[in-house]
């Protein structure tokens, strides 16, 4: 089976963060990452003004 394009990325980040990933978990991690990146791209595609502040310190 051909390696998924995400596999190299998963290997690199897991190594950088010292997170162990067993082979049995990898398909689920990849599937979750695929969903997360798809949703993150949806956010990324939205044009935001340069001067908008992040809401990391948030007040309702």
């Amino acid at each position, binding site marked *: 089976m051909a390696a998924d394009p995400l596999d190299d990325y998963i290997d690199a980040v897991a190594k950088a963060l010292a997170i162990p990933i067993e082979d049995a*978990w990898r398909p689920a991690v990849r599937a*979750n990452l695929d*969903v997360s990146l798809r*949703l*993150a791209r*949806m956010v990324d595609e939205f044009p*935001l003004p340069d001067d908008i502040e992040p809401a990391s310190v948030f007040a309702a």
Partner: protein
Amino acid sequence: MNSRCLTTSSRPVSSQPDIGMSHPSDALLATEIARAVASGKMSALDVTEAALARIREHDTILNSFTDVTADRARGKAGAIDAAVAAGRDAGPLAGVPFAVKNLFDVAGLSTRAGSKINRDRPPAARDAALIERMEAAGAVLIGALNMGEYAYDFTGENVHDGPSRNPHDPTRMTGGSSGGSGSAVGGGLVPIALGSDTNGSIRVPSSFCGIFGLKPTYGRLSRARSFPFVASLDHLGPFARSVADLALSYDAMQGPDADDAACTTRPVEPVTPHLARDIGGLRVALAGGHFQNNVFPEAVEAVARVAKALSVTHTIEIPEAMRARAAAYVITTTEGASLHLDRLRKRPDDFDPAVRDRLIAGAMIPAPLIDRAQKFRRWYRVQMLEIFKSVDVLIAPATPCVAPKLGQTTFVLDGVELPVRANIGIHTQPISFIGLPVVAVPVPLEPMPIGVQIIAAPWREDIALRVAYALERMGVVAAPPPRGL
């Protein structure tokens, strides 16, 4: 056991459970218990024993409690009775039993937060802030409640403790992650429970279990000494079987707290005295677009009943709600990953695999995308605040469907098979994303209830609760007796 409907002429619609009464308090709401205890007509200790008996009898089915703090409860109840006997004020929640999701610190218990790993933590030295405030008002803590692992869950299932079960059909989910809270209140074991809501974890179990839930404005209630999930989005709040009970507990828990960096410094703004105020002058609209898509007929029916009762015909399109949900997802998975990074390294085999694999994926999202999600949050908040200049209340489904079966992984909507877990919270996430206050109200459809969100502007819990109260008085919303016990 068969359920039968108990009604009294003093209430608009039955909200009290009937689970085979053995004590008069079994059928009482929190407001009624407090009144009876404060006046000396009922003993807090008897009320406590009755709650403990209900748990013994029914929690073998519901699996809502993970810890029952019986000795502590008896001690507290005895103190309440002594205060009443001495003529002292026993508080607005005198003798009212309540329980908390097991991510709240309870002195003497390890705060497990639904996990196996946290059971190795030392016992908490002090109660969570909201437990202290509830008990200062006279309430009696009965125990800690089942939940989805580390609150990363919409189902109420838990691989370590087993699933909490729906009180109307134990083969169905309670919803999560505050599953035990929904089950314990929906099943009539306690009149009030506390839970947390990061993306919908109060509103989803309220919907599936047919009870009222309040997710207050972000920062309104202190989160001090509760186990976190997503600092940007975490809220705590109450569940109850009536709006008056919800307001009573909410009022008791308000107030600044320096121990929670996000907690507001606004003064306490009691709602209970204003619940019955006329709502005729309020501007109410249906949330359109995203909130009218991906819904089953029961959710459409529930929203229609509420809209008809409030004579609402106006629909407002909420801009970019799908993207708001996506941004909430990104912030959740990344902040959750950050919180658990060291546990993922050291004890990956002790997680629920489904939670672990989501968190590992969350650790791999590039940082600029997280920053953009937080910036989008600011943009979306501005749009929503603009909408609240022209309306006071928005109406939206709480869940797209009634409670799915335990273990169910997909459902079919409009001919398309969709994953259950990922779609249960699609209508709650865009609201908690910017911290708006919401009351989830139960529409008692047959055979299963379903909730509707009553959404107000920031810091206007009073408005959402007044609308919920009016709907309850009209008989449109009510917590049905548990049909599954």
